[in-house]
């Protein structure tokens, strides 16, 4: 087994993103916390990337289709050395290149996102590009579950199966919530696994907070069976902060001084617990 303490890395990133949101006085807190472990699994355990050479031609590609969860993503890119950590405190402020949603001006970020439903089709293009140019890089895309209501997601799903993109992995941050409440109340998604299977994907369900589990699952993927891979990662929106967990209104929210202190304390506790 690896000696990397992924849990510790994820806890540190969660604390950083909360501090960043507190400083910026804006941020999509709930979804940033639900996706942290998935992003850590990809960036520290799976993807072949070079922070010193962000545009390296053979790098694995990652698309944050749920672009509003940019906070944790930026903390990871800074920690890996794509840009200085001090810059995190400029997030979404006037003049900063760390805009409130991902832009390709930031080293390490592949595409501009934030409008939901663009990421999977863009990732399809990247995966096709790899096949076309004979490169071995893999493409990963993370989507929200509410995002799946966008028709363009299913257009991309069809294209990925049609072109037999076994070099493509899509992950759904299945936290069960979108802005106006439960996904099953707003626009039912279930039977979600069966839907993706019917679209021609190889579908896995996983615990979206088990970083080592996600890493070993992705390492086990066959790359030659002609099927795109889907991981339905079951997560908790607001993960790690007691008063944010599963609370829809923390989709977007800035902690007060006391809330920040409690959130940081909560995170220390859970990390110790594992």
């Amino acid at each position: 087994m690896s000696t990397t303490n992924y849990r510790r890395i994820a806890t540190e990133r969660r604390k950083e993103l909360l501090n960043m949101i507190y400083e910026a006085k804006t941020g999509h807190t709930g979804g940033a916390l639900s996706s942290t472990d998935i992003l850590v699994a990809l960036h520290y355990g799976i993807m072949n990337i070079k922070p010193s050479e962000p545009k390296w031609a053979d790098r694995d590609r990652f698309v944050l289709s749920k672009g509003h969860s940019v906070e944790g993503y930026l903390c990871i890119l800074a920690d890996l050395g794509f840009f200085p950590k001090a810059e995190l405190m400029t997030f979404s402020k006037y003049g900063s290149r760390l805009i409130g949603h991902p832009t390709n001006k930031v080293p390490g970020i592949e595409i501009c996102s934030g409008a939901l439903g663009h990421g999977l089709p863009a990732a399809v293009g990247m995966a096709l590009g790899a096949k076309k140019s004979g490169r071995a890089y893999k493409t990963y895309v993370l989507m929200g579950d509410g995002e799946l209501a966008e028709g363009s997601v299913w257009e991309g799903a069809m294209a990925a199966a049609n072109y037999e993109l076994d070099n493509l992995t899509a992950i759904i941050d299945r936290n069960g919530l979108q802005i106006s409440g439960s996904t099953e109340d707003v626009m039912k998604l279930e039977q979600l696994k069966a839907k993706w299977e019917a679209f021609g994907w190889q579908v896995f369900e996983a615990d979206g907070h088990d970083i080592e589990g996600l890493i070993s699952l992705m390492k086990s993927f066959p790359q030659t069976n002609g099927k795109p891979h889907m991981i339905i990662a079951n997560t908790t929106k607001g993960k790690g902060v007691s008063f944010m967990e599963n609370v829809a209104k923390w989709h977007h929210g800035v902690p007060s001084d006391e809330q920040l202190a409690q959130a940081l304390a909560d995170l220390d506790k859970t990390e110790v617990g594992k």
Partner: protein
Amino acid sequence: MAESKSLRVAYGEALAEIGAEHKEVVVLDADLAHATMTAIFADKYPERFYNMGIAEANLMCAASGFAYSGLTPFVSTFAMFGAGRAYEMIRNSISYCNLNVKLGFSHSGLCVGEDGGSHQSIEDIALMRVLPGMTILVPCDSIEMKKAVRASLDIPGPVYIRVARPVVDSFTNPEDEFIPGKANILREGSDVAIIATGLMVTEALEAAEKLSKEGVSASVVNMHTIKPLDEKCVLEMAEKCGAIVTAEEHSIIGGLGSAVAETLAGKSAAPFIRVGIQDKFGKSGKPSELFCEYGLTGSNIADQCKKAIAQKK
């Protein structure tokens, strides 16, 4: 004391008010009811409110279906995802069929601030303006917002209401008539006419005040309807003041500035300057910081007025 209210809250309240009298009104949203403020209607009339999910194409085409069924749908999402994402649905399923659908899109312009350029809709007026038969209303305060929502009911066919996010002090007169297509002249002057829309109307008034202290007399026109444009008013202002400055929280391409330019072309040689976003995307920052950078301020409007006056022959 002037009342301060967010234009989107005024929009939501207006929907709830007309909902009481007009049982044919239904409201559709796409997971943003607490941002667009259609939640105010939804709380009162849950049986006439539909959350279509994060699916704007679905939202627009479903609205057309409601209209075909004899209902009057008011559709809301952010301007970026309504006018932008679902443009072709609006064009072919709503506008082309001249359906009675009202589009109330919020978070227009630079006011989404920190969210950055991907969410800042600076082209929605342009997109809606090229659609034949589309009426475009851009209210400047909450008093006007309520009048606009009511007025839209009397217009058969599609209407776009641009719903700004910020809280603004109400300054228009509740007694003033709101007639779509007829501009309201807020201040009469003789050296230059400022034609403004939406949030830029207060900035225009500020500019006129500043100019008057410097001995310059400016007219201020509240152009609350971009389409059909009050061309008569534009031409009269050009004739009377001899210089025109437009001001909008939108690209200078395709919006109010373009509409006024198209009206003046070939009919007036008056110097003409457009204040607005100069063919650039937005970025992150507080709305006030962005308004300064992009020149959407009373002081820049005043400067541009002086430039226009200096160009008079």
